[in-house]
């Protein structure tokens, strides 16, 4: 079973993502941005769902750290954000720096299909 790490400062959100994805994937939650890299190294996820805005560390910085990590650098990331950017207006899935990007609240079906595509790709 593929492994997914969900990083978001909202425990309820990560819990519900886990509950929704668990039948298909093994899901690990991480609510502390500063621990995200460490957890990822330990867990070895096939994909990371990463919140963009968190209190301790920005999602973008975490992504940069993952890119720099020899073990994790090929791990795909899907960004989740509560901020609406212009790119989001025209399409349900947009990309930032080549990475997919989804706006909260995320439709479960859309999230599931995006995860599927990224894992296949």
């Amino acid at each position, binding site marked *: 079973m593929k492994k997914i790490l969900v990083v978001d400062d*909202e425990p*309820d*959100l990560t819990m*519900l*993502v886990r*509950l*929704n994805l668990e039948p298909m994937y093994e899901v690990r939650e991480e609510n502390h941005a500063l621990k995200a890299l460490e957890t990822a190294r330990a867990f070895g996820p096939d994909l990371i769902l990463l919140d963009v805005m968190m209190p301790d560390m920005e999602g973008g910085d975490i992504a940069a750290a993952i890119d720099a990590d020899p073990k994790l650098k090929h791990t795909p990331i899907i960004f*989740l954000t*509560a*901020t*609406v950017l*212009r790119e989001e*207006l*025209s399409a349900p899935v947009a990309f930032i720096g080549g990475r997919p990007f989804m*706006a*909260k*609240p*995320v*439709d*479960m079906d859309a999230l599931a299909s995006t995860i599927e595509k990224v894992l296949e790709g």
Partner: protein
Amino acid sequence: MDISSLGPNLLRTLIDHLPDSIYVKDVQGRFVLDNATHTRIVGAASTDEVIGKTVYDFFPTGLALQYDRDDMSVIHSGQSLLDREEPIIDSGGQPHWLMTSKVALRNGSEEVIGLVGISRDVTRHKQAEEERDRFFQLTPDLLCIAGFDGFFKLLNPAWTATLGFTAEELVKQPYIEFIHPDDRDATLAQAAKIARGAPMAQYDNRCRCHDGSYKWLSWSVSPSIEHRLIYGVARDITEARAAAKRLVDANIELAHSEAQLRETMAALRASHEDLIQTQMHLIQAEKMDSVGRLAAGVAHEVKNPLAILLMGVEYLSHHIPADSDNAPNVIRAMRDAIHRADRIVRGLLDFSGERQLNLQPHDVREVIEQSLLLVKHELLSGHVHADVDLPPGLPHLQLDATKMQQVFVNLFMNAIHAMPQGGTLTVSGSHSVFRESVAEGSRVTSLRVGDPIVIIRILDTGHGIPADKLQRVFDPFFTTKPPGKGTGLGMTVTRKIIELHGGTIDLRNRPERGVAVTLILRPSEGVSQ
């Protein structure tokens, strides 16, 4: 009665009762006879005091010498001196004029033995004549006598003073030669009327001066048919006419100034109203800015709870008991509510979004065509026919293509929603020049009269907007759509984007049916195609 026997008595009675002065002198100039009138003039008490005396006894030497010279001339030549005007000073020192005739008196052998003098006092007549002459000479009016032959006969000095020609120059050629060519026909017509016996004619014409200029004369003319003469009085009204014209001009100028003043006042009033409008818009804009900032903060904070709710609903939807009839409906209602809340939050973020535009020169046709592609599905399912008339020559516009696409999609969607039974969506464009009237109903604009503009019109054939709601379509959270269908922010955002582009948007019901939206945009400077 034997008249001849009366002799000297008859003579005395006759001469004493004549008003003329009568006297007889001998060849030495001594009075030998005079009548009562003469006695009174020389200041003697009786004729006895006069007899034997000469003019030197009664008159100042200067006058006496003149009289004596005349007397001697008659006596020596025997020729009569007739109607001689001579001045005298009477005994009271008053000057008089006498009309005197002196005739030689001869005896039986035709020898001159003296003279008979007869003098009439013409002082009053003479004074009247002098006054008339003085009047003729001194009046500033132009007096003249002209013949029916077309020549001046007599002119007073005012003519020379007014026109600069001497009287000799004026009488030498027909007077019509001095009249302005344009006034000659009318003048000749007046002269003919007078010659036919009209008692009087009054008219104005222009008379040439010695320096070539013309003066306006106002004529009053009467004829003497018997003498074939015209008596004319003319007055120089050149200055009066100029003054009258100046007055008329001044009146016109005044009326003009008044009209200008009224216009300025109206313009002032209009700009004052504009200013009040602008002020209100600014207050409104400031308010919307604060609302926008607040909305952005709130929206962001609301998105995470919404995400949790949506995830929760998703989870529950997979865990509802198989025998539950209502649970799927409850789940659907909750999911719809979350999506609705999400749309509103997105609208708020949009509304409060960045004010920076990514401006590039774009062909507005391409932007519109791309926007139409995005609503293609809605057009088809709504049975709406799109009629696009965008001429190829429209100038490029400085646009943020993404934002303008949002504007067009929004306007197209509104039009489609306004035609639930289907209809026609018309999009047309034209290139023009800004006039106040084309932006009527729009808000304040930076456009100036004469600026080149591109006008985009979007028309639908839908149900239109109720008049009482038309004013509010741009208000945030105002919507004419059923609950859940619109956020009430679409038109607010649309107008904001248009105004950020320096353009205007006007929305009104079409007289026939549906709504007309007019966008006015400014072409890129220095870019034609």
